[in-house]
């Protein structure tokens, strides 16, 4: 427990450092950091609608974060969540507009297809990883480009709604993911995300499968020795991660946009990955970090009207967080190597 606490204190320090450097940069553009951060806070949590907006942004980051957590815990670095999200989103939209079904069932089928699409998409890198040992980081990153462009192609050339926008026809109302409040597009996706985070956390802590997967992630040779089929687990982990990535896309189209638009959800997959890394691969921790990134995104909308800072400042802050987290990880590792040796035997 103590160890966990210490690990997280490092992440908090990283965030504080990033915000501090961010403040300096804001000062450099002759704006007051206090004002910018207060505006961000107001933009994120200022009133009911703003909080709902923040939660709306948080939802896809959270679900993509969970997808990343699943991979990280199983020793697989799925950087292709963005692509899985796009394909899942498109697949759900397609079921939504092209396949009339009764209410309720329509949502379930569309979500299921989104999940399958995400899993199917990652199954290609997963196959090469398992069969030939191809590095999944590279192949999943590359698969993002294909996914984004493929969905653009499908949208523009095959399913384009007549009219000016590069988007599919709207989905039928039977496929809408119900909204939670009248004043916001915030929908059941958030509840699904929270439930999924709890489930995944429970799965890793309390099931035999979760134990096996964690062991593959943290000590693959030990897992192999202990009789766990390491390759199979790795494949399944990537598949599960991709499935959740697809789900995130499905929830965005069915809950928020009610259609698939080209470039409909930029960067959620990557934000989710960062949220998961910042949370050390803990799904519960990812709820907190996803909320943080969601708040940054939503709060930034107010930045351009109320301050001289551009909303890109939040991208800068995110990048700084990544940098300081990486630096922390490296420093910790260095500290560990000598500390480990000291501990090894007194």
């Amino acid at each position, binding site marked *: 427990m103590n160890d966990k606490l210490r690990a997280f204190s490092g992440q908090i320090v990283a965030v504080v450092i990033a915000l501090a450097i961010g403040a300096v940069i804001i000062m450099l553009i002759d704006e007051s950091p206090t004002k910018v951060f207060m505006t961000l806070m107001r933009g994120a949590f200022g009133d009911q609608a703003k909080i709902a907006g923040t939660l709306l942004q948080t939802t896809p980051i959270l679900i993509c974060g969970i997808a990343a957590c699943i991979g990280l815990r199983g020793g697989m670095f799925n950087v292709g969540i963005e692509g899985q999200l796009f394909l899942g989103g498109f697949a759900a939209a397609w079921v939504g507009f092209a396949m009339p079904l009764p209410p309720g069932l329509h949502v379930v089928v569309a979500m299921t297809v989104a999940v399958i699409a995400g899993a199917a998409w990652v199954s290609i890198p997963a196959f090469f990883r398992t069969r030939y040992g191809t590095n999944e980081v590279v192949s999943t990153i590359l698969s993002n480009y294909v996914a984004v462009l493929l969905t653009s192609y499908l949208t523009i050339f095959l399913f384009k709604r007549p009219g000016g926008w590069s988007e599919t026809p709207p989905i039928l109302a039977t496929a809408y993911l119900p909204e939670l409040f009248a004043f916001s597009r915030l929908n059941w996706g958030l509840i699904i995300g929270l439930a999924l985070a709890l489930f995944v956390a429970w799965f890793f802590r309390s*099931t035999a499968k*979760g134990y096996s997967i964690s062991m593959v992630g943290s000590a693959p040779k*030990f897992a192999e020795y202990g*009789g766990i089929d390491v390759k199979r687990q790795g494949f399944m982990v990537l598949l599960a991660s991709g499935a959740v990535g697809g789900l995130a896309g499905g929830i965005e189209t069915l809950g928020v946009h009610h259609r698939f638009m080209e470039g409909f959800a930029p960067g959620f997959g990557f934000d989710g990955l960062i949220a998961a890394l910042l949370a050390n691969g803990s799904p519960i921790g990812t709820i907190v970090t996803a909320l943080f990134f969601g708040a940054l995104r939503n709060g930034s909308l107010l930045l351009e009207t109320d301050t001289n800072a551009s909303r890109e400042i939040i991208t800068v802050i995110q990048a700084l967080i990544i940098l300081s987290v990486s630096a922390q990880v490296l420093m910790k590792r260095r500290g560990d190597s000598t500390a480990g040796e000291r501990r090894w035997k*007194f």
Partner: protein
Amino acid sequence: MSTTSPATAQTAVELIGITKRFGAFVANEDVNLTVKRGEIHAIIGENGAGKTTLMNILFGLLQPDEGKIRLNGQDTVVGDPATAISAGLGMVHQHFKLVPSLSVADNVFLGMEIRRNGLIDHATQIAKTRELSERFGLKVEPEERVSLLSVGIEQRIEILKVLARGARTIILDEPTAVLTPQESRELFQTLRGFVAGGMTVIFISHHLEEVMEVSDTVTVLRHGKHVATRPTAELTKADMVRMMVGRDVSFDRRPREKTDGQVVLDVKNLWARDDRRLPALRDATFTVRGGEIVGIAGVAGNGQTELAEVLSGLRPASHGSAMLKGSDLTALSTAAIREAGLAHVPGDRLVRGVDGSASISSNLLMGRQNKAPWSRNGILDWRAAGNQAVEMIKRFDIRARGPEDTVKRLSGGNIQKVVLAREFTNDADFLLIDQPTRGVDIGAQESIHDEIMRQRASGRAVLVISVQLDELLTLADRILVMFNGRIMGEVDGGSADSERIGMMMAGLEPGIVSDEVAS
């Protein structure tokens, strides 16, 4: 490179009244140590006796709570390793810190690269490495990549690193733990060369044979306290053990009942390749019966690892069979082999045997995560796992703060006990134990041997692979000797002649094709 070593000082290192606490734990208590110039000074003691802490204090990696350090006769505050290095100290750690993708010379000069016009001057680095290598008799090929080299050569590189930084007093932390007997012997020769040239060597070990062989003076630590410093010549091995452990420990051959069990493991014409795809195990044929301990002797790297890996399903066999009570292990997955009745204590316990970052309970759960009472319907019962851990900690005398203690915090011997606890309590008919006591202190060695004998008495078939012949002579009913992938012959454990075994270990027995000996 070292400028501050007045040759007049008689003592290279003096530690006076060193005390170091970690919280409530006292790692060193009022320890005094005087190392004379030009001697090989061994520091011995069980794991946890405070040897490494003391050396880390000397080298500036840790700061003492009390006491002072005198280097070359001068009071010195060793605030960091840089201070120690500039005073002519050098430390070779137990775990090497080399960059595998770089060349030998690049590793030697890592952090103090020789530059020309702002770029690394590889040619000079290589030349200087070669010069050091020749001067001190540490044979290396400066341009070779470290990832291709054996552990013994990696150690030479570590020593060269220290020499390149101008060390006159070299501290080696358990240098032989990873070496073959031959490599150890070469190392000792090098160390003797060092002291003959006026250098000083501090040598941490718990291999008493080696301490007897190589050191001039011995300091014994026990529970963080200084017990004695004596000339090695005045001591016997038994004296040292008594001082280290605080009681008499026996390494005589274990008494045993004769047994006549069924054949449990039947290996026939087994072949396997190593990672370079060369034949590493050649035509092994042997049996292990229930209630019998069969030992595999041999210098490390003569096919023992491959044999263990084939029997445990971690490496495919290229030919032959290994029947465990009717199932052929060569055709089964690791999981199926365990199901068929194998318990396996792996040779590289830190990589294969445990997940160092996980708790003791979690490590003891491996292989049981799908079995009652530890799990039902796929749901783990962590309370049952915790209870199991508490029980095992008690039964196997694992020194830990509790079942949730992280394994990597434990000492080597205690980590080994975690592995043994898990494997010995599997209801397996066949125990494969690779290096039962490597890196394990003497008190714990005895209890591990006790446990192995208990497994024998309960009727299990036991195969012990060890590079320590003493250990096999203590335990085994029969000893098979491996050389160059082949089983050279079999000797009776009770009447074994270590001379003859030694000959076979070196491949000197009639009946081998000569070109194989050469390779």
